[in-house]
């Protein structure tokens, strides 16, 4: 029983990371139609910013710095690189591919390819006893943050004017433009939000894995892509549900099955979902 509790909470912790990455990816794709391979870079930038800032100003300042760095990278990439290429989707993908290659190499040249030890609050290293299971506290940090982010995102999308524009833009971008609303401003906004969420995921991932390395974003990104497709492109709730399913499936099969079987089963799930429901769990891409 204790194993099941531990696996469930670890799986949910992983799901939290996936959700933070996938929700940003999903919004960016749903609204702007950009498949963003540089999203992993936003994550790494956030993680390295926190790692760099922590010895100078302490963790309480370093975490917002990391999130802000992710957001700033996202906004900068949209304005400088993506904006000139709207209506040319293939070129957009190619630019983000080039950016992810060059960006990771840049991080590597500055801080080296080896993983760096990541700071974490002291309490996150302790364990809490639930039933008979000893659960490390960092799991609760991840899950808690993801729940807060999910609620905040849903509130933003459903209760604010910009949220309305984003939701409408995902459903029918041309119609929103025709109503005289500048959708492109919303594009910058979703890139900034996506960057901030990816930066958060970078900081939390660093605490969870205990280290940060230039390629960390890219390896998480592939599972985030799977979560986005399973959840339905453009759907935040879909991403949340898919992240939980993928995280739990991966943890349990990895523990009870052969090594690596969990990762394979996630891909099998993706194939199954695409065969049965090609548009993902949310079926129609709406940001509900």
């Amino acid at each position, binding site marked *: 029983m204790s194993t099941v509790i531990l696996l469930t909470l670890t799986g949910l912790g992983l799901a939290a990371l996936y959700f933070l990455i996938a929700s940003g990816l999903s919004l960016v*794709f749903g609204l702007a139609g950009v*498949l963003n*391979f540089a999203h992993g870079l936003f994550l790494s930038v956030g993680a390295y910013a926190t790692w760099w800032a922590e010895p100078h100003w302490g963790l309480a300042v370093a975490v917002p710095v990391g999130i802000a760095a992710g957001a700033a990278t996202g906004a900068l990439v949209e304005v400088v*690189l993506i904006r*000139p*290429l709207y209506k040319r989707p*293939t*070129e957009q*993908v*190619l*630019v983000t*591919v*080039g*950016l*992810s*290659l*060059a*960006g*990771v*190499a*840049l991080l*590597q*040249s*500055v801080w080296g390819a080896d993983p760096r030890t990541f700071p974490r609050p002291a309490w996150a290293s302790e364990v809490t006893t639930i039933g008979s299971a000893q659960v490390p506290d960092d799991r609760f940090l991840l899950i808690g943050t993801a729940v807060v982010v999910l609620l905040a995102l849903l509130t933003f999308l459903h209760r604010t004017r910009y949220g309305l524009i984003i939701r409408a833009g995902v459903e029918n971008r041309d119609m929103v433009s025709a109503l005289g609303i500048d959708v492109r401003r919303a594009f910058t906004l979703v890139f900034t939000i996506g960057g901030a969420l990816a930066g958060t995921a970078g900081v939390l991932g660093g605490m969870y894995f205990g280290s940060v390395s230039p390629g960390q974003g*890219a390896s998480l990104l*592939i599972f985030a*892509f*799977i979560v*986005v*497709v399973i959840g339905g*492109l453009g759907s935040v709730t879909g991403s949340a549900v898919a992240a939980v399913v993928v995280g739990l499936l991966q943890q349990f099969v990895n523990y009870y099955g052969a*090594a*690596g079987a969990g*990762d*394979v089963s996630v*891909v099998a799930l*993706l*194939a199954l979902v*695409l*065969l049965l429901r*090609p548009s993902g769990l949310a079926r129609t891409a709406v940001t509900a």
Partner: protein
Amino acid sequence: MSHVRKSLPLLVLVVLIVLPYSTLPVPGVFESPLNSPGTLQMLALCLVFGGLALGYDLLFGRAGLLSFGHALYIAAGAYGTDILVSHAHWPLWAAVAVTVPAVAVLAALLGAVALRTTGIAFAMVTLAFAQVGWIVVNRDPGGLTGGEEGLPLDSAGLPASLVGVADTANLYWVALAFLLVVVVVVHGIDRAPLGRVLTGLRDDERRVSVLGLSAYRLKLGTFVLAGALAALGGAVHALIVGGASPHLASADLTLSLIVMAVLGGAGTRWGAVVGGVVYAYLDQRLTQIGGALPGPLSQPLFILGTLFVLAVYFAPGGLTGVLKRRGRLA
């Protein structure tokens, strides 16, 4: 002028064939004379990547299929050949003869699933399938793949003429032969009606369907053919570097194939070949001289990635597009 243009590829081929007989030193471009084993191996890798990039361009530039999982079939070709030679002690030719069709079957099975989706979803599904390959290779199931270390090719199973350092010229010719095979196959398709149908698929799938052709079957056939060419290239790659390494299965390899095709000029006759050769050359050469360069310039991928982003903005037709425009102006 048109005579020159027509006979130019043939001329290049002749030069490439006789190149290992030359002792010419090319300072700055290569560290050692042309016929030295180091330079020949470098050139051989350039040729292999030229072929791999053109094979990928059959999917990407011609049929318009943005696959993010091409590395899977390259790795399957390399590891399949390597495992049969090194673990099962098969002769090389038999290993290749079994591996390539087996990979084609794999491509048919996975392609049949992946091609039910289109566009971005297709890219994601192929990426996910390839990721499984990467995981499997790294986990080293049953000691077959050697995990992160890779699997060195057991030279006992190879013909004597491909083993010694002095025989690097033979490996070079094998690489050249592979490139030639890919060029003949892909250019053959370009010239055949099939090539025009594929371009039609890329530009407007509905119009091809209206003509009564099955877009799904055409795309699947192309996917399988590209998979088989990738497997052959993987086997040749394993032969040249003396083994298979997990890098071959990584998403980064597929990304670099895309960079090659676009950098050279996707969908053009020679674009992907030129892109593959140039990319592989820069990648190896920048690694050699990287230590001498300051800061981020010491990372080949930083330079290549930046070049690629610039190319997407300022040279949409790739290197061959730039050459063509200059030719028209002159």
